[in-house]
Structures are given as C-alpha cells and as structure tokens.
C-alpha cells in the first residue's frame, strides 16, 4: 500500500517535472533574484527595510495604500454581497441579467474603464455637469485626481471579484434553512441575520481577502485616476525601479507586498476548506 503510494507519487512528480522546472526557471528564480536585491542593493544588509520605519515618504505611500485598499474592500464587499444575494434568491431571468451585468466588465481592460471614469468624474465631466445643471452645486466637485476617484474606480473594478466567492458560498446554503427559521417565527430580517448571514460568513471572508489581495497590487487605476497626487505601493515601486532607479528600495517594497499577499492567501485557503464553507445536509 505504502509502496504503491510512493511509486504513484514519484510518477506524478516525474510527470509534473517539466512544468515545475519551467516555473522555477522563468518565475521563481527571477522573482527570487529581484527580492534578493532588497538585501543586496545598494549595500548588503537590512538598510532598505529600516526605511519602513524612517522614511516618511514610504510610510505615507504604505498608509495611503492600506487606507485605499481597506476602504475599497469595505465598499466592494457589501455591494458584492447585495448583488450575490439578489442573484441567489432572484428569479431566473433576474439571475441571468445580473450575472451578465457582473461578469461583462471583466472583459473590459482596467485602462479603458479608468478612462471612462475620467470622462464621468472630471471637472467638466458628466457628473459635475449634471449636478450643476440641477443647481445642486455651484462649483464642480473634485471627484478625480484624488483618493475619492481612485476608490470609485477600484470599487468598480473589484465588484466581480467580490461577487464570485460570495455566489459560490451562497449557492451552497440550503434555502430551506431560511424557510425553517421563518416557520419557527422569525421575521424575514431575523431569518436573514440568524441563518443566512452566518452561513455566508466564509464567503464574506473569502471575498474580502481576495479583494484586498487584488487591490494591493493595483497599478493602472490609481495611476490614472489618482493623477500622480495619490500614490499607491505598485506605482511607487515602478517609480523606484524605472525612474530613479533605486532597485533596493523597490525590491524591498515588492518583498513586503509579496509577504502580505502570501499571508492573506494562507488566510484565504482556510475559508476555501470544504469543512468550513459547506452546509450540512
């Protein structure tokens, strides 16, 4: 038994070897090289990492990144929850319509979507013109080239990623459980709070972590909608490496990004564990 198992494992390893080698050669090795620069450039040591505590510029970028990512997640996940909920409990036609509404934007690049937001949000964009024509405001609102604009664009981009894990987790909820709660005297709201919401918790966690991971690495949207005034970590790294170039600092920040992402992924894998997300039948 044990022998056949190890033999099978060996065969499996052999079959996977070419792919693993490719991965090692073209992916892990270069990434490792770049990350190693963080302790080698400009001089060997942890000097670059000290900057995390000393450089106010880096701290500003990190805190802006964390703030924007958390706010984006805090908005995208509840919106995604609402959509996933409507898709889950809605009629069939509603479901198809909403699903397409959620998935279609995935085919439009971040670049195009960002420029669409520019035309909508700029000083003489549609939103400001509309509000001015209604007389709600005298002066155009600063809707873009700031954190607000970045968050609007990022939330919009993130909605499908927030919806999908939630949909998967809600599909696994036995809707009769909500019925059962109602039959035992729970109002609609109470049945939702006591039964549906707790059972969709793994989905919420998965969705939040996925959105957080994806927002950390955002480049295009903040670059365009932030207008250079709001800088997030990905853009900062690019500047360090391509413009200045300060490879050491860029590599250090990239390492931080990778470590945070891996930590979040580990957390995420907990919620995709079947024993956590599946309802008993």
């Amino acid at each position, binding site marked *: 038994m044990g022998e056949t198992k190890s033999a099978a494992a060996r065969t499996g390893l052999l079959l996977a070897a070419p792919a693993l080698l490719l991965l090692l050669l073209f992916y892990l090795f270069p990434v490792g090289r770049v990350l190693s620069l963080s302790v080698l450039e400009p001089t060997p040591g942890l000097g670059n990492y000290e900057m995390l505590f000393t450089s106010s510029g880096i701290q500003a970028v990190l805190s802006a990144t964390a703030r924007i990512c958390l706010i984006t997640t805090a908005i995208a996940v509840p919106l995604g929850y609402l959509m996933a909920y409507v898709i889950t409990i809605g009629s069939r036609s509603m479901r198809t319509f909403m699903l397409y509404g959620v998935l279609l934007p995935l085919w439009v690049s971040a670049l195009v979507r960002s420029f669409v937001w520019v035309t909508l949000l700029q000083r003489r964009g549609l939103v400001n013109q509309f509000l001015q024509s209604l007389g709600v405001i005298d002066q155009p609102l600063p809707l873009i080239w700031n954190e607000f604009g970045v968050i609007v664009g990022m939330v919009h981009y993130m909605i499908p990623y927030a919806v999908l894990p939630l949909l998967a987790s809600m599909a696994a909820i*036995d809707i009769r459980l909500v019925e*059962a709660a109602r039959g035992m*005297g*729970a109002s609609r709201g109470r049945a939702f709070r006591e*039964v549906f919401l707790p*059972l969709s918790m793994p989905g919420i966690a998965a969705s939040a972590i996925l959105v957080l991971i994806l927002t950390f690495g955002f480049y295009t949207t903040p670059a365009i909608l932030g207008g250079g005034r709001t800088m997030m970590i990905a853009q900062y790294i690019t500047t360090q490496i391509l413009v200045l170039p300060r490879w050491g600092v860029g590599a250090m920040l990239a390492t931080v990004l990778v470590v945070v992402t891996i930590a979040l992924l580990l957390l995420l894998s907990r919620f995709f564990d079947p024993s956590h997300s599946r309802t008993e039948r």
Partner: protein
Amino acid sequence: MNGTPALSARNLTKRYGPVVAVDDFSADIQPGEFLTLLGPSGSGKSTVLSMIAGFSAPDAGRLHLRGQDITAWGPEKRAFGMVYQGYALFPHMTVAQNVAFGLRMRGRPKAQIAERVRTVLARVRLDGFEDRLPRQLSGGQQQRVALARAIAFEPNLLLLDEPLSALDRQLRSEVQRELRELNRDLGLTFIFVTHDQDEAMSLSDRVAVMNNGRLAQIGTPADLYERPANRFIAGFLGQSNFFSGDVEEQRGDEVAVRVGGLRLLAISPERLQAGTEVTLTLRPERIAVGDAARSCANVVEGMLRSRTYLGSSIAIEAEVEGIGLLLSTAAAWAPDGGGGATAFGEGQPVALGWSAHAATLLSER
C-alpha cells in the same frame, strides 16, 4: 370528529407555469388527528404542505385555522412546527440552539427556554447531546433533533415531510411509534407526508391519497383499502386484480357482471343499468384456492402459472380463460398442519373462488 376543524383547506390550487402542482385540494383536519398525505413522487404532497406552512402562496383557494382565515398570513404568524425531509437543521448552531430557536424568536425568557429545551430533548431521548453540532450526529439523532425543534415552541400543528425516508427499517418503526405517542400524549395535530403506503396505513387516523396534484380519496386506512373510490386507489394501496365488464342484471344489492365469457357476482348498493361498463377490483387475499373455492359464489377454473413463496403466504398466479392472469395469496401453512397452498403444483389446473362481497365495483373502465 365533529366541531371546528383544526385546519381546513378549501380548493387549494398551485401552478408552476404550465404545471398544475396541486389542483383543487380540499380537506378538513380535526384537532389531534394524524392525517397522512400519501402519493407517488411528484403528486403534489410537498406543495400542499408548503402552502399549509405558508412558504408558498396558493393561486386559488383558502386556508382556515380553527375557523379563522389564514391564507394571507406569513409562515412566522402561523407558527406550525415543521420537520423537513433531510431535516434542515441549522448547521452553525448546536443541538440546544437549534431546539431553542423557535422559543427565542418568540422572545421567551432565557430560563424558560433552557428549561423547555431540556424537557424536549429528554422527550426525544437526546439529553447529553446539547452542545453537539448537527454534523456530529447520526441520521436518526438528527431526525430526533428536527422533531424536538419542531415541537419545542408548542405549535398548533406539526407538519412532517417524509421525515423517516432516510432511516433504516428498524429505526423507522421505532420513530413511527414515537410519533404516534407524541400525537397521543400531546394531543398535537399531525400532517404527515410519505410515499410509503405501509407507513401511511399503520400510522394514520386518516389518509389523503394524492395523484397528479389531485386528491384521489381521503378516508381511514380501512375505508381506502376496503372501499377504494377508483382504480388508482385500488392499485396504489396494496394489490388488486381488475376485470372490465358490463352489468348484466341487478337483484337487490347483488349485481351480475359479464366479464369475458364469465358471469361474476358482486355487491353494489347503487342501482346500475344493465349494460353499464364497470370495473371489478378484487384483492388477492380474498380469493380462495383449491377445494375451498368450490363453495364460493364465484368459481373460476384456471391454470397455475407461478407460485412464489413469501414466508407467511404464497402468491399464486393463475391463467383464467376470459379474464387473464389472476393473482391470489394463500396461507403457506394450513391450520390442519398440511402444506397449505404449497400443495398446488405449477402447470396444474386449479379452482379459484370468492364471495360476492369480496369484489368492489367501480363505475369506470
């Protein structure tokens, strides 16, 4: 059985697009009664139950609870206990929390809830399981938690949708007895859904048989078995032989029916015109085989085709000219110590007989 019914369904109808899931269902349930909805898969049993519970709104018809119209009430206001097929226990709550749910929704004080949960769990013999999660229980234990949860808040009515179908035979008969006791001890009204006819017959005060969304017949188990209202019931509950024929004449209650080349006697309180097309239904166990058949009002000669040993009885299929295969069951052991029906050999001629009272006349083909 008189007085205001506990629940009265009037002309309930439910459509799903072109499918008529339930068509014009009417029934009165008396307080404390054990009523079973019986029918083949897809006949609309669950749909009736879910309209009664308030989970789906009828397209037509009304529901009355002790005389009060509750058609427009939501499920939480009706407060019926329900046990689902597959139980639908809350997977994120412990056994105690599951059972306490209905009480908590009613805002009962904490101490009272704890006391009631203890009592109910003891009633279903699950004391000591309070802190387990549903997935840590066996199927039978989950079933009992579902039952405890449904009766904990002292509902007016208990609805059970095939609660026993996931249990093995032995456990099933045990729970059946518990259900009967619950029905008697608490005076709780039961509406029980099953597609198992033996279960329906042995548990119920009355059985409502459904077919294709319609109520085919409602009555006591004996009513349904002895006096089936139509061919479907006669075939669905137990086994029956069917013969199609024409009424020849009627003398008093006794009707002579021509079936093939045979003249068979049956009883009908109804007046039937000569020439009326009818169906005779005959239970296999009411047919006498061999010498005993000679003294019956109806005697036919047949050729024994097959003999199946069933332990307590023997099933005999005989080919009878003019009416085809006739199924009968006879005791495998004769009171005089003889071999009973084992004496008949396959391929040999055999006499079959039954009294005029044995057959039921249906005025349909």
